[in-house]
């Protein structure tokens, strides 16, 4: 069942199109990553679906319209930096969130323990480090037991220890069965946390789907032989070989499924009386996929 349906969403600031006809469906229980470089339209998308930015055109619907304009009560979200009353402590800030969400059943003490802040619950927000602020923000998103939690660049500006801590907390949140939407420009973060991904660049949706399908784990083969034409014919006839191309006079590059090993390619050549003079495998990296998906813009830039 979709928790969020986005249809042809567009946002323009004067002549600048921040978001261009975005279509996206987010299913319940998924951990969805909105991935894109800075300024790609991720935060604009989140701003619109959270009702703090007005869309220029298009529409979106939460929970099939079940909660009307009270849909935000079922969502816990933090956009960009964590914003709380700086002169209030964690406990009082969370009590205000509780009031806004009209929720009374939350154990604030337990929430603060979950995010490792119980020991600083009486300290004013302005005295917190960035990591502590981020953890308080996560606790705030969990008030009222929302169906969906949204995080925007949750590890931005944190040190490695802070990043690890926040990621652990996010994983625990995800494991609790909630739908998680997370905007990030960090591929590694999306790969480690998310089950699904939508790649956005310059306000356009470039790709969307399961992380495993969008980011392939194909292997790249670099092969040379004394019988290059024969080798090409043999490889081209195999379904697990993709994108065969000749790099040089006697070098061929191709992609192959990760289930096929280099030994099997070696045996294939041997069985066809072809002598290999070079066989090199390279694992395709996540970054390559990401760059490929956003390639035309990179060229433009």
């Amino acid at each position, binding site marked *: 069942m979709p928790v969020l349906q986005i249809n042809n969403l567009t946002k323009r600031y004067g002549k600048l199109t921040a978001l261009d006809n975005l279509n996206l469906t987010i299913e319940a229980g998924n951990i969805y990553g909105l991935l894109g470089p800075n300024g790609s339209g991720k935060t604009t998308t989140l701003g619109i679906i959270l009702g703090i930015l007005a869309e220029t055109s298009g529409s979106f619907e939460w929970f099939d319209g079940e909660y009307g304009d009270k849909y935000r009560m079922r*969502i816990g979200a933090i956009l960009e930096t964590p*914003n709380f009353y700086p*002169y209030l402590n964690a406990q*009082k800030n969370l009590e205000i969130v509780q009031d*806004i969400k009209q929720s009374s059943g939350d154990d604030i003490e337990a929430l603060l323990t979950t995010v490792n802040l119980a020991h600083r619950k009486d300290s004013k927000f302005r005295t917190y480090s960035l990591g502590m602020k981020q953890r308080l923000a996560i606790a705030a998103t969990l008030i009222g037991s929302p169906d969906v939690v949204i995080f925007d660049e949750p590890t931005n500006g944190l040190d490695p220890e802070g990043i690890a801590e926040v990621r652990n907390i996010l994983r625990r949140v995800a494991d609790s069965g909630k739908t998680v939407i997370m905007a990030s420009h960090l591929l590694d973060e999306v790969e480690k946390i998310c089950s699904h991904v939508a790649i956005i660049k310059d306000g356009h949706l470039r790709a969307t789907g399961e992380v495993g399908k969008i980011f392939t784990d194909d292997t790249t083969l670099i092969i040379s032989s004394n019988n290059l034409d024969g080798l090409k014919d043999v490889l081209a006839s195999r379904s697990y070989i993709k994108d065969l191309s000749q790099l040089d006079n006697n070098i061929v590059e191709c992609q192959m499924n990760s289930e096929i090993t280099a030994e099997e390619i070696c045996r294939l050549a041997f069985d066809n009386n072809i002598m290999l003079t070079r066989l090199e495998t390279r694992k395709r990296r996540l970054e390559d996929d990401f760059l490929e998906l956003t390639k035309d813009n990179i060229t433009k830039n």
Partner: protein
Amino acid sequence: MLQLFKTEIKKFKDNSTIKLLGIFFIALTPFVILTLKGIFKDATGPISIINKAISEIYDLPMVWEYQGYAASWLVFFFLGFMVLQMFTNEVSQRTMRQNIIFGYTKKEFFTAKVSVIIFLAICATILYALSSAIIGMIHTPGFDLELLLDNNWAILRFFISTIGTLFFALLVAVVFRRGGLSMFIYFAYPLILEPIMRGLTIWALIRGGKPSWTIMNYFPMNTIEDLMVFPFIRIFSDFLNIHENMSPVHSYPIAIGMGIVYTALFLFLAWKSFEKSDI
């Protein structure tokens, strides 16, 4: 609305600037006109006449006017500043945006602010009424209850003046959003910009051969000020009205009517501006 109000109080009760402004207002309101007595109490010679004149401002029913005039300036400076702070802080600390993300609708967020303004206006009016009554009771020779009830329309006028001033502060904060800019506009508009606009309007009318002094009374903040105008100006205005058919100050019924209209207009414009804006 009560729940919105309670949440709003939770937000600001620990804010030191807002607390300080509240304390100053509460501490100054009952005593500000009494300080005049202290300044001239040892006056001798011709200045002693001032001391005599001042002693009459504490008598009922005149105390309602003098105390109201002084308290309305304190409302303008302290409570108006408090309203500006309450809104612009939410913008600059981005808690307004976060409140909306957490689940408030724009209407709820705005209503919460309005509820606090109404609360402040009620508290200020109670403080004004109590302090005026006590000062009057202490100073009026031959005090009786009838004297206390005389001129108590002043309480209504003070309430409208207070809520009008505070809604004006809300409008400025909603439109300009940034703390410094809002503060500048809030203080500069009634003290500098509107007097200039009034002067230019009269000048234009004189040049056009249709002088009308009363038109300047209809400017918004002038109307609000006329609800609690300095009593001497009121007496002077009544005199001019009788002898020259010219009135630099609204009559009370018109001031009350116009004050309500402008208060409603400030609130309406503040809401419309807030409703349309991105958070």
